[in-house]
């Protein structure tokens, strides 16, 4: 499936948007390391959906707008994005920080949403569960901790690092810190309003997640009691990248 790439301007910010496939819209919100390329799971989803993969403001090739101070700004930005593109019945999917943004969007307004798919989402804290500190982790260790299958980590680490890639990695890390340094990768006030999410929620988590441990699910079971939960065996923090076939099956079923 072919994805088109173009820049669109929303709230004065140029955003790099890749879009491909046919069907109802599915908006994928990436995590802290961005969405530099179209991954196999996106291609597979594009057989069933009109898949939109933007790079968030402050990430990748998108602008770094002055107004971007916190995660709430990003949520309002995406509400404007959905409106500007006239999208309805959207399957809103987010991984890690993107999952957090998806929840922040959904507690504000679900009128353009059909459902939420949260993939090892950040955004809340869970008593007694300690997430990894991505800001103290050397880059190589972070890549290793993202994957359960270390062959995938090796493959990621083997990709030659270009100066452009270094710049983008530093930009992504800067924006992640700006949005999620403290409280670390969560909003302590988000749980108060999760009851407002009135569309179906699916939560997918890698059983071997070393960034946000699967034990977070206990808290989601409490906060989103109607959510459908899937634990993916043999996957780490990126189950969509590590087990794309199974992942797409879970999304579509």
């Amino acid at each position: 499936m072919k994805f088109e790439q173009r820049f669109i301007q929303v709230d004065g910010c140029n955003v790099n948007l890749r879009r491909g496939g046919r069907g109802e819209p599915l908006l994928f919100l990436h995590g802290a390391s961005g969405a530099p390329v179209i991954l196999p799971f996106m291609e597979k989803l594009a057989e069933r959906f009109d898949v939109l993969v933007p790079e968030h403001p402050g990430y990748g090739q998108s602008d770094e707008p002055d107004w971007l101070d916190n995660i709430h700004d990003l949520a309002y930005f995406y509400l404007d994005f959905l409106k500007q593109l006239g999208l309805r019945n959207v399957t809103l999917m987010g991984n890690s920080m993107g999952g957090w943004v998806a929840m922040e969007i959904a507690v504000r307004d679900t009128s353009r949403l059909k459902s939420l798919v949260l993939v090892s989402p950040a955004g809340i804290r869970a008593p007694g569960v300690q997430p990894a500190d991505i800001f103290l982790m050397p880059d190589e260790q972070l890549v290793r901790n993202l994957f359960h299958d270390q062959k995938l980590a090796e493959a990621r680490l083997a990709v030659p690092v270009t100066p452009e890639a270094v710049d983008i990695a530093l930009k992504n890390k800067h924006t992640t810190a700006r949005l999620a340094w403290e409280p670390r990768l969560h909003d302590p006030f988000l749980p108060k309003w999760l009851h407002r999410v009135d569309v179906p929620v699916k939560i997918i988590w890698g059983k071997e997640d070393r960034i946000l441990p699967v034990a977070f699910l206990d808290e989601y079971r409490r906060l989103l009691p109607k959510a459908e939960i899937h634990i993916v065996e043999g996957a780490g923090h990126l189950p969509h990248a590590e087990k794309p076939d199974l992942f797409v099956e879970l999304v579509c079923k």
Partner: protein
Amino acid sequence: MQIVLFHLMPYADLDLEAGRGNGTVWLNLPNRNFDPEKGHRLYNRYLDELEYGETLGFDAVSVNEHHQTAYGLMPSPIVTASALARCTKNVKICILGSALPLRSHPLTVAEEHAMIDVITGGRLVSGFVRGIGAEYHTFGVNPTISHDRFHEAHDLIVRAWTEPGPFAFQGKHYNVTYVNLWPRPYQKPHPPIWIPSQGSKETIDWASHPDRRYTYLQTFSPAKVVERYLKMYRDTCRGYGYEAKDSQLGWAVPVYVGESDHKAREEAKPHFEAFRNVFVRMPLEMLLPPGYTSRESLKNVMQAKAQMFGDVTIDQATELGLFVCGSAATVRSALEKYWSDMRFGNLLVMCQFGTLPADLAGRNMERFARGVMPALKKL
């Protein structure tokens, strides 16, 4: 030249193997490694050393702020400066500095510095810093807004010190309806402000601005780097249309004076190397969190990583001018040479470093004060 006795108050009783094993003595070295009994003796010894600085004729004594580390035991330099305020009579007291962005509210800095200034009858020098990278983990202050908070906190403090209260302050980070400082500072218009830095163009542009003309201190850097940044400060002042006074420039450096060059090196070696290779050390991710520096500076550091993060011997450090060590004559001529190259009006000497014990630190201070300082003061 004005000579300042500078102290970090390190946890000199540190189990160095524990520090090495942890990779750093900052942030996450478990605090079971701190023994309050030993801490009690160290604090009192270090305060004695600073008080002795007045007896020995130093122009000023200096404390500073660091958090959650064996590198320096002054999470609040206000506490040590307050103790010195009453135990000393004439010497200036420098707080170099208070880490403005790390404070929940900058008015607390304005108040506490003003108190010390009033208690001492105007002997306070106020230093403002951003705190080092690792300290952005201590209170969770977001490093990407560190510069912003620093500038806004500075503006609020200086206005609180100088403008008649009450007045309202509206900023992005701080909003106060009634700014009305009691006490107002003793010195007019306010205590001198010094800006310690590891070297950054942004800091130099800001500190040297004609509205401020703050004294810029280059801390713990190789002499060549100190020279480069002090020159950058002077050039920036010229760009602003004025000549920097020597008193606007300073250098902070560890110093050890022994009976002879050989004895100085022998005595200082294990303690300096513990300072440089255990107490100072931290991983890149801790030193430079995202946004703490510009991305360009961060990239430069990443490229120089091997060089910056490796061990340094006392001989390499002396060669680089990271450390000044030798007999009184050697140290005197080295510092005179550095002065003639750089013309700094303030020299901050750290006579205790790392694990250096009380007897050696005391003799170092005495030899420096008697054999080196008088010549430097005349410069």
